[in-house]
C-alpha cells in the first residue's frame, strides 16, 4: 500500500495542474466524513456521524464545510430528510442516463390505421373507423403518434370538431418515399396483385397528399391541443408543401 500511495503521489505531482490548496491544510475530519458518507448505503444523520468522529469535532461545521467544498463539483453533499448523503449534481442528470433503442413491430391494427391515414389524410378518427369497420383503440393512435409518423394536423369543421390526422416527414423517411404522391395508386396496387382486379368499378384509392396547408374543411389546432396531445410530435414548420 505504502508503495502504491507513493506512486500515486508521484503521479499527482506530475499532473499537478492547479489542484486545490496544500492538502495538509484540510482538516482530517473532512476526510473522515467524506469516507463515511461515501461508503454508507443510506443517508446518515448528524448524530450518527458525530458518534464516529473524534472528540471535539464540530460535525455541523465540518458538514457545512464539506458541503461548500462539493457544491460546485459533480457530486454534491446534500441533506435529505435531515440526513446527509452524496448525490450527483442535479444538472448532470443527463449524464446519469443511458439511452437505448429497442426495435418494436407495429401491431396489425396500427399498420392499418397508419395506411388509412397515409392514403386518406387529412382524416378523422371516425373516418378511419368507417373505412376499417372497427373501432380504433386509443392505444393504437398513441403508438402511431409515438412513432412520429403521424400527427394531428387540424380539426375538421364538423360538429364535435374532431382532430384530423396526417403523416409527417418522418413517415416519408421511414418508408423511403420522396413524397406522399409516391404511394402507389389504384392501378399500381392492382398491378402488384395487392388489390383484386375484380373490384367494383366504383372502387377508388385516393391520391394521397400531405400538403401542410389546411384544407377548406379544416381548422387549425387549438392552443390547448399541444398540451392535450403531449405524445404528438410537433409539426415540423420546415416541412415543404408537397403536391
Amino acid at each position: 500500500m505504502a508503495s502504491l500511495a507513493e506512486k500515486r503521489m508521484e503521479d499527482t505531482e506530475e499532473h499537478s495542474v492547479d489542484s486545490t490548496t496544500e492538502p495538509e491544510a484540510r482538516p482530517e475530519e473532512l476526510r473522515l466524513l467524506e469516507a463515511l458518507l461515501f461508503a454508507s448505503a443510506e443517508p446518515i444523520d448528524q448524530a450518527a456521524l458525530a458518534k464516529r468522529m473524534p472528540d471535539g469535532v464540530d460535525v455541523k461545521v465540518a458538514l457545512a464545510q464539506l458541503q461548500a467544498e462539493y457544491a460546485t463539483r459533480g457530486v454534491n453533499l446534500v441533506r435529505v430528510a435531515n440526513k446527509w448523503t452524496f448525490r450527483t449534481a442535479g444538472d448532470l442528470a443527463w449524464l446519469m442516463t443511458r439511452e437505448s433503442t429497442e426495435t418494436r413491430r407495429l401491431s396489425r391494427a396500427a399498420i392499418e390505421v397508419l395506411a388509412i391515414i397515409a392514403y386518406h389524410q387529412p382524416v378523422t378518427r371516425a373516418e378511419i373507423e368507417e373505412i376499417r369497420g372497427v373501432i380504433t383503440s386509443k392505444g393504437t393512435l398513441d403508438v402511431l403518434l409515438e412513432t412520429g409518423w403521424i400527427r394531428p394536423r387540424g380539426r375538421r369543421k364538423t360538429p364535435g370538431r374532431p382532430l384530423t390526422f396526417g403523416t409527417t416527414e418522418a413517415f416519408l423517411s421511414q418508408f423511403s418515399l420522396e413524397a406522399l404522391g409516391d404511394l402507389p395508386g389504384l392501378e399500381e396496387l392492382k398491378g402488384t396483385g395487392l388489390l383484386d382486379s375484380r373490384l367494383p368499378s366504383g372502387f377508388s384509392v385516393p391520391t394521397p397528399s400531405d400538403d401542410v396547408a389546411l384544407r377548406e374543411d379544416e381548422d387549425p389546432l387549438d392552443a390547448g391541443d399541444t398540451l392535450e396531445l403531449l405524445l404528438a410530435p410537433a409539426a415540423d414548420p420546415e416541412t415543404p408543401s408537397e403536391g
Partner: protein
Amino acid sequence: MTAEILSFETGRPAADVTDSEPSLVVDVEGYEGPLDLLLTLARQQKVDLSKISILALADQYLIFIEAARKIRLELAADYLVMAAWLAFLKSRLLLPEPATPDGPSAEEMATALANRLRRLEAIREAANRLMNRPQFQRDIFPRGNPESIAEIRHPKFTATLFDLLTAYSAQRQQRVLATVHLTKRTVWSLSEARASLERLIGIAEDWSCLDEYLLNYVVDPSQKATVFASSFAAALELVREGQMELNQKEAFAPLYFRKRPPQASGAMSAPELSVE
C-alpha cells in the same frame, strides 16, 4: 503445538540443555509438511537463510524426528523420506567428495535445499504482505449507495412499405367485398354462344369473318374474351355437326365461317375444317 525448542549450537533439544523439564514437546501437527518444519528449524539458526548451515539443520531435523518416533508420534511418510534424505545428505557432506561425481554434489544438494527454504520463506513473506494490504470490503469500501444509471428506452418502430400497402389493400378490399356483393360475372355460356352462332349462320351464306360478327354483337368490350372463347367452342361443335364450315389461313389469323353448302350435307362424316 509447536513447542520444540532446539538448540542451534548443539543440535539437541534445548530442554535437555537447560535440564529443567525433561519433556520435549514434539508435535508435527502444526507443520505443513517437512519443508515447513525445516524452515521453522532453520529460522532458529537466526541467520540469513543463504548462510544457513545445512549440516546443522539436518541434525536438528533428525533429532526432532527421532524424538517424535520415541514418543511414538505417528509421522507422515513425507517426514521420514525427508529424514532419510537428510541423513544421506549429511553423510555426503561429511565425507570427502568422490573423485568422479556423477550427479549433483553434496554441496549442490545442500544449496538446492537452502534455496527451497528461501523460496518458501519468500512466498510466505509475500503472502503476508499481500494479506496486510488494505482489503476491499474489509478496509476500504466502494460506494455504499450507488446511483443507478437510468435507462431511457427509445422504441424504434419498424414497418415496411410492403406492410403498409398490404394492410391498406387488404382492408379496403375486405370492406368493399364485404358490403358490395361480387357482381355476377358476365360470361357467355356455350349454349348462349351456340344460339347466337346459329342465328349468324342463317345470315352468312358466304365466308364471313367471325371476329367482325362478334365485335358487332358484343356490347361490352370487357366481355370480348368470354364471347370469343365460347363462340369458338360453339363453332367447333357446329362444324362437327356439319352445319358450318370454318376457315383460317394461319395461326391467329381471322377466322372465317359460312353455312355449310347443302350438297355436302351427305358427307357428314368428313366435315371440312381446312386450315391452309
